[in-house]
């Protein structure tokens, strides 16, 4: 048994220890807000917060997440910064197909928790997730908007 703390709740998981956290979330726990895109940490659709750090769960063995505070998109609005980010995403009408946006919101939340007033360089360095719809300009605008929101 592996014990995980996900969105503030302790969960007992019976899987192989090297199973990627992504598939524990999606299959074992039915939390499908976190997306599978590439499986090799290229696209970032699977991003979750691990002790506040944006982490690509598709290459994170579940045993390595033991003891960490895991926050997924399902609970993002319980974080004050996450709530602001979601509001900026909705207000800025960022998503198109939306498939990458769970990961984008996670990445933006991690950035603004660590760097509340990011420069454009900070945004470029942190927001590396891929978006095939090309919503990058709206993403950058929304990050700036969330940073400026009181």
């Amino acid at each position, binding site marked *: 048994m592996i014990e995980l703390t996900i969105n503030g709740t302790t969960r007992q998981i019976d*899987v*192989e220890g090297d*199973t*990627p956290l992504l*598939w524990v979330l*999606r*299959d*074992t726990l*039915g939390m*499908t*807000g*976190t*997306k*599978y*895109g*590439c*499986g*090799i940490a*290229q*696209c970032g*659709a699977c991003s979750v917060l691990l002790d506040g750090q944006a982490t690509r769960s598709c290459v994170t063995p579940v045993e390595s997440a033991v003891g960490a505070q895991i926050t*997924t*998109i*399902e609970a*993002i*609005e319980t974080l004050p910064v996450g709530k602001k980010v*979601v509001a900026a*995403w*909705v207000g800025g*009408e*960022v*998503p*198109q*197909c*939306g*498939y*990458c*946006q*769970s990961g984008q*919101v996670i990445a933006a939340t991690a950035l603004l928790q660590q760097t509340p007033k990011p420069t454009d360089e900070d945004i*470029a360095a942190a*927001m*590396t997730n*891929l*978006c*095939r*719809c*090309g*919503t*990058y*300009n*709206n*993403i*950058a605008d929304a990050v700036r908007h969330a940073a400026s929101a009181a």
Partner: protein
Amino acid sequence: MDGMIPPFARAAAGPRLSRRGLGAALGALVLGASLPRRMAHAEGAAPPPPGTRVSAFLEIHPDGRFRLLSPFVEGGQGIATTMAQIMGEELDVDPARFEVECAPPGLDYAVVDGMRMTGGSSSTRSSYAIMRRLGATARDMLLRAAATRWKVRPEQLVTENGQVLHRQSGRRLTYAALAGEAMALPPAETVRLRDPRTFRYIGKPFARLDMRDKSTGRAAYSIDTRVDGMLQAAVQHAPRIGAEAGDFLNEAEVRAMPGVHSIHRLKDAVAVVADSWWRARRAVETLKVDWKPGQGGLPEDFSSAGMLAALKAERGTGAVAEEKGDTEAALRGAAKVIEAEYDAPYLSHAQLEPPSALARFNADGTLDLWLPNQMPELFQGAAAQVAGLKPEEVRLHSPMLGGFFGRHFLYDFANPFQQAIQLAQAVQRPVKVIWSREEEFARDAVRPMGFTRFRAGLDANGMPVGLQAAVVGEGPIGRYFGAAMGNPPVDPSMVEGIVERPYAIPNRRIDCVRHPQPAVIAFWRSVGHSMNEFFYESFLDEIAAAGGKDPFALRMELLKDSPRQRDLLRAVGDLSGGWKRGPYEAEGGKRARGVALASAFNTEVATIAEVSIAEGEVQVHEVWVAIDPGSIVNPAIITNQVQSAVALGLSSSLLEEVVYEKGAPQARNFDAYPILNRTRMPRVRVRIIESGAPMGGIGEPGLPGVPPAVANAVAALTGQRVRSLPFSKTRFGAV
């Protein structure tokens, strides 16, 4: 060319498609058998024509919810919101109150000129009048129901955002309270539509309905679907299409892996069914298979390099796609003749949601099937064939798409639903198949490779007097609809973007030279336009250079008979702060600009790009787009679709190329098939112009002008003319 709208569902005896009617993105017509026959042989009385039965599109629930059943699938293009805006305008309900879902298969939804699909940038323009009329018809029924209840004349009643009012008496009822009576009334033959001058929702930047769900992880895609008792499957495709699975060399080892339920041989693949997808994937990738060469499929020596060489060597004359004047004579008499060859590679769709399919057979023998698709009835028919059922025994669900760009039509070897159906039959449990990203890159159907050879003749003043082009290759319309169209010699999806250009070049001849490509080819955002405007508009800049003319000024002059395009070119010039080609100094470096026009899906587009060169690579800083779709529904959605089209146009032309060797694509993930990331995204400014021309498409037309605008800017900056995509193949010296 892409006026679109194939009327294949009208023909009882099978599809019969006009060349004119077929320009746009359609699915593989494996369909033929299922859809038209089913539609033609509807039971009993003749069914109402598509797009007329209000209750098929609108449900007004007692709790006040408005459910709109859309003929189209939402995949990021904003069509759910657009449908709500149009319906809401005439029904007199705030579009924000609608829940929009993709409708199940059914004759009612064949609103794209007699058929149903989400593609070809056709959704809004095909259904605009239909959705308005449905909304107005429903509102009229609600008014009459209220009039009956209150014993007044309907003309004495008005509506106000979901309520009927009798002003004289102050009485009011919600639509929900009237819905039961209203929907039982016969619809009126004619209804009055709202005066466009009083529109509240149409033409406005109405907020998209799905933003919250998509920002909080609640939006559910095919890959997220689950049902009770479900098992999951992962596949290992044959190393090459055509190879067949022989012996399993370590079957016992794989069977003993955790969670494994069973191992299966399928056409073109082996599969492992397990209690979770990760366990299934682990197991199927552990399975060692003795793959045999097999029959057919992709030749073992097939390569993209060999394909390009074959296209270049093709010297057949083909068929005339467009002819005006005497081009041979014009070229003979020209003061100067120039020639150039252009090519573009195979491309993957690379939508971020990997394909999946969930199949569940029910106790009554029917099948429920969830899968990403752009043509529900087509997939319903195909699924029925696989399952040995009648189409109406297949309940097909079309969840929101995690991107599509032409990916989710029916292509050979490219869809997982057949695997899901066969596995569900084999294990007697519901089965969800997900393709790993690697398996998706291995089987995605590709944008065709393109090759075009140009010649142009210039007079002593440097003006083009003759233009000749041979377009060589194969397009998806010819591949999938050729037989249904009676095998016309010209494939419109090969030549669109090269024929019917707005320029006053007095003599021109465009030949369509068909040369089959073994790869499984696909529709890809803007289809032939995705490369043909790059070819044509780049060569037009070569003509300008040969004649000593500024490319913007030359286009202006050649557009003397095309006022709509001339206005648009002027508009994009203004939007960019006035045309300047450069090179010029900006932000500590040298930059230059290029311009291109595109005419696609009945929409006109003018594009200017600003570039620099950094470390030998093209950097695109700014893109300005003026777009004239005739008339519009939602300017905010259009602006975002143009942003998206610019991104995909740039991504493809800067970076993307599917390389085949030994009969198989080489790149299997985003590390080897890079797509545009945030650092390469330029600023994009959009101006929408409503010329009043018939409504054109939105999803695709913003793409074709981007690659040539960039190429022309690069040529202005470096003197280097890129004639082979992607740009990343070319290293540029310091400027």
